[in-house]
């Protein structure tokens, strides 16, 4: 019996060993055998594989509000105008354009022979349809307000009291598109280059409803690339659009957008060479990547800031808010806690915002000096003085102010929260940290149902109004419930003038007020930190957080 037992055992073990060897040994030999034919089968197709995010929520230009979706739309569509590598406005579907003297009428002249990706003609009427569609409340375009609020009759259309076809856009002929504005808009060209206002194809939308934007066969676009395959959770394959007017400038045969959510997964895709560029790099890898020429840290238009709810009694006193701002060692937060993937923020408006009067808004702010001094020790001493002036003891041992700091748990939010606990303790504030799940966090913050919370904003276009107006008393994103009549007056002044110098001065004055009263607490400027192979040539990254691959090539 014993013999038989061991015999059977031996047999089973053998079976196992054989299956184990089967799965273990095969892959060792396989790569050479299976990858070689795949490469030789398609030698001509030059496909660039990149990762800029997981599945986009939507690729309907009117409905998109996300950066990753916006990045793909940039390659799929071409607006009236575009933004070039230097960040300047350049011709797009419109070859030339002009503005009336009063700044209220914009006329765009389309190029000859524009076509959709299915080969049909694209006319000015398509732009009329697309813009009306964004304004139509039934479309529920999240950016309608941002891009169209200056256009004649927009308010009536979005409120439902007028039909979308009453919007101030028209097409006097097939190649001319005219927009009438209610108020002059100094940055209207940026809006005309904004992905939300991409032309969309009326025929496919009316025939297929919402689902037109999820199937390659019904997805019609007008940009350098068009969708050929979309496997949700896996990839989107785009190929060069043969009907694009500037197709000769496009060198790639296609771009494959890997839809990866996990940064470790994207990192290994980069390391194995499956992707040549990845946006999501695991933060724990950052220290080891420093100095690597393929690792880039580029500033983008955005600020990581804190809201101190101005409806909370303790924060009604600007001295307390200012003290809390000064007690933060921004250098340490950005370079040590955030591993240099953020830049310390001494102003609210960081690098990249365009000053209406010319140049960089940040360099011209506060007479060229940062608002917050880089001397942390002096700041801390001043913070303690401010707390005392507000009637507190500022004693680290006996805190006499208790507050709750709320944040969601992702990225560096938790380590920043823990740091703030330490930092604010030094000026006698006892902080308890509350971690709130993301989907509950934003509505809670918007409702003002918190004391202190993290916040952040990434710009949609480089005009400073895009971010600075967040603190306007009636702004829907004024989560800090900041209400300062002087600030509102400065913003009103910036809106009512077309003179670039006056406008610039008003906007700078608005930032002066924010920083002087700590209307919010800027902590760090956002960057995009990413890996990009040196094999990719002719691409660029913009401060809007977009990568431009349309005219890129892969070097051998």
């Amino acid at each position: 019996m014993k013999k038989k037992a061991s015999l059977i055992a031996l047999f089973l073990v053998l079976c196992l060993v054989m299956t184990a060897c089967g799965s273990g040994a095969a892959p060792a030999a396989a790569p050479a055998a299976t990858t070689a034919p795949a490469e030789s089968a398609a030698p001509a197709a030059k496909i660039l594989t990149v990762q800029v995010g997981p599945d986009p929520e939507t690729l309907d230009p009117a409905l998109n509000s996300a950066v990753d979706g916006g990045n793909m739309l940039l390659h799929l569509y071409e607006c009236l105008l575009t933004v070039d590598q230097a960040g300047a406005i350049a011709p797009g579907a419109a070859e030339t354009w002009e503005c009336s003297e009063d700044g209220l009428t914009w006329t765009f002249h389309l190029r000859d022979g524009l076509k959709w990706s299915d080969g049909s003609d694209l006319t000015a009427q398509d732009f009329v349809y697309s813009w009306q569609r964004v304004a139509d409340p039934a479309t529920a375009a999240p950016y309608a307000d941002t891009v169209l609020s200056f256009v004649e009759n927009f308010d009536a259309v979005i409120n439902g009291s007028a039909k979308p076809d009453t919007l101030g856009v028209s097409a006097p002929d097939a190649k001319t598109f005219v927009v009438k504005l209610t108020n002059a808009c100094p940055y209207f060209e940026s809006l005309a280059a904004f992905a939300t206002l991409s032309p969309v194809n009326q025929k496919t939308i009316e025939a297929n409803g919402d689902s037109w934007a999820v199937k390659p066969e019904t997805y019609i676009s007008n940009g350098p690339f068009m969708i050929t395959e979309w496997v949700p959770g896996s990839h989107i394959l785009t190929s060069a659009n043969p009907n694009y007017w500037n197709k000769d400038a496009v060198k790639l045969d296609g771009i494959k957008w890997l839809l990866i959510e996990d940064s470790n997964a994207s990192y290994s895709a980069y390391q194995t060479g499956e992707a040549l560029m990845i946006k999501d790099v695991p933060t724990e890898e950052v220290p080891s990547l420093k100095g690597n020429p393929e690792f880039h840290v580029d500033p983008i238009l955005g600020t990581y800031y804190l809201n101190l709810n101005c409806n909370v009694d303790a924060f009604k006193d600007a001295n307390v808010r200012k003290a809390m701002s000064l007690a933060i060692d921004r250098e340490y937060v950005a370079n040590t806690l955030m591993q240099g993937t953020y830049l310390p923020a001494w102003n609210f408006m960081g690098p990249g915002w365009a000053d209406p009067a010319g140049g960089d808004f940040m360099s011209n702010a506060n007479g060229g000096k940062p608002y917050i001094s880089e001397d942390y020790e002096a700041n801390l001493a001043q913070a303690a003085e401010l707390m005392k002036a507000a009637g507190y003891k500022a004693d680290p041992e006996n805190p006499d102010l208790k507050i709750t700091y709320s944040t969601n748990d992702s990225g560096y939010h938790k380590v920043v929260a823990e740091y703030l606990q330490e930092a604010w303790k030094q000026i006698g504030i006892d902080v308890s940290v509350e971690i709130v799940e993301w989907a509950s966090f934003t509505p809670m913050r918007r409702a003002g149902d918190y004391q202190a919370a993290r916040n952040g904003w990434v710009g949609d276009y480089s005009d400073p109004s895009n971010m600075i107006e967040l603190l306007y008393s009636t702004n829907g994103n004024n989560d800090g419930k900041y209400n300062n009549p002087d600030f509102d007056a400065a913003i009103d002044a910036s809106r009512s003038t077309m003179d670039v110098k006056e406008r610039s001065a008003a906007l700078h004055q608005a930032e002066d007020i924010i920083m002087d009263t700590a209307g919010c607490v800027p902590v760090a400027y956002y960057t995009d930190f990413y890996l990009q192979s040196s094999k990719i040539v002719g691409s660029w990254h913009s401060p809007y957080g977009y990568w431009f691959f349309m005219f890129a090539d892969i070097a051998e």
Partner: protein
Amino acid sequence: MTRYIIKRLLMAILTVFIVATLTFFLMNAVPGGPYEAEKAISPQARAALEAKFGLDQPLFKQYLTYMKNILHGDFGPSLKQRGREVIDIIMSKFPVSAKIGGIAVMVAMLVGIPVGCIAALNRGKFSDSAIIVIATIGIAVPSFVVCSLSMYFFGVKLKWLPTVGLTTWKHYIMPVFALSFYPTAYIVRLMRSSMLDVLGQDYMRTARAKGVSWFVSLFKHALRNAILPIITYVGPMTAYTLTGSFIVEKVFTIPGLGGEFVSSITNRDYMMIMGTTIFLATLMVFINFLVDVVYKIIDPRINLS
């Protein structure tokens, strides 16, 4: 048997109904909604969206509408993945998960059962101890560690296996390994203890005394009895494995259903939460029913009614 099946079917419908009802009201009780983002959408856009998907109706009315619709097989559109129907998402993603999951279940059983038997038959010997140690590790190590380690060694360091997607058979190796790791270890331990229990039973001795060969006694008497607890475990395990794993799919970028269970909740995609929950509940109930039938086949003494 027919009466039993009808009874079970009615029970199944009731179970799924209760699960659906509870989920519907629980998910609506959680704060947040599908249209929350860092940047507030305009009140007009929000109102239009809510009207479009019926979210502006009183909750109980929404519930009645939803229940009426699913009776017609209409699971509604996803609130987040605009333009996609919930049923289409499930039907396109489930086969992907089920394929990897199915292979993983097979691997777990084909490896787990024999290895468990070997351990039991060699009780106390070195091979037994070695198997127990390995199986304990298998149970203790969480799947994200298995995923990350195998990805690091076989994908990044040795470059033997691809790490993204599911295009060739080689893409299947790591996800299947990661998915089957825990169930295999669990089955090994379960099989070993169950087998040891059976081997000590009187009927085994009787069978041997009657002259039944060792081989026959092992396969016909011992295995058949020892395998019952495995079936109990394999049933629900199969349902979970077929519907995909959030972690494995995330790490290896597999377009499966597992991720939808988690992301639908963080996105507050109410239609998707309901769809995935009802789908999993139905699958679970069905597999449990199958398990009961298989029980009856293996052990005729079990009285189903």
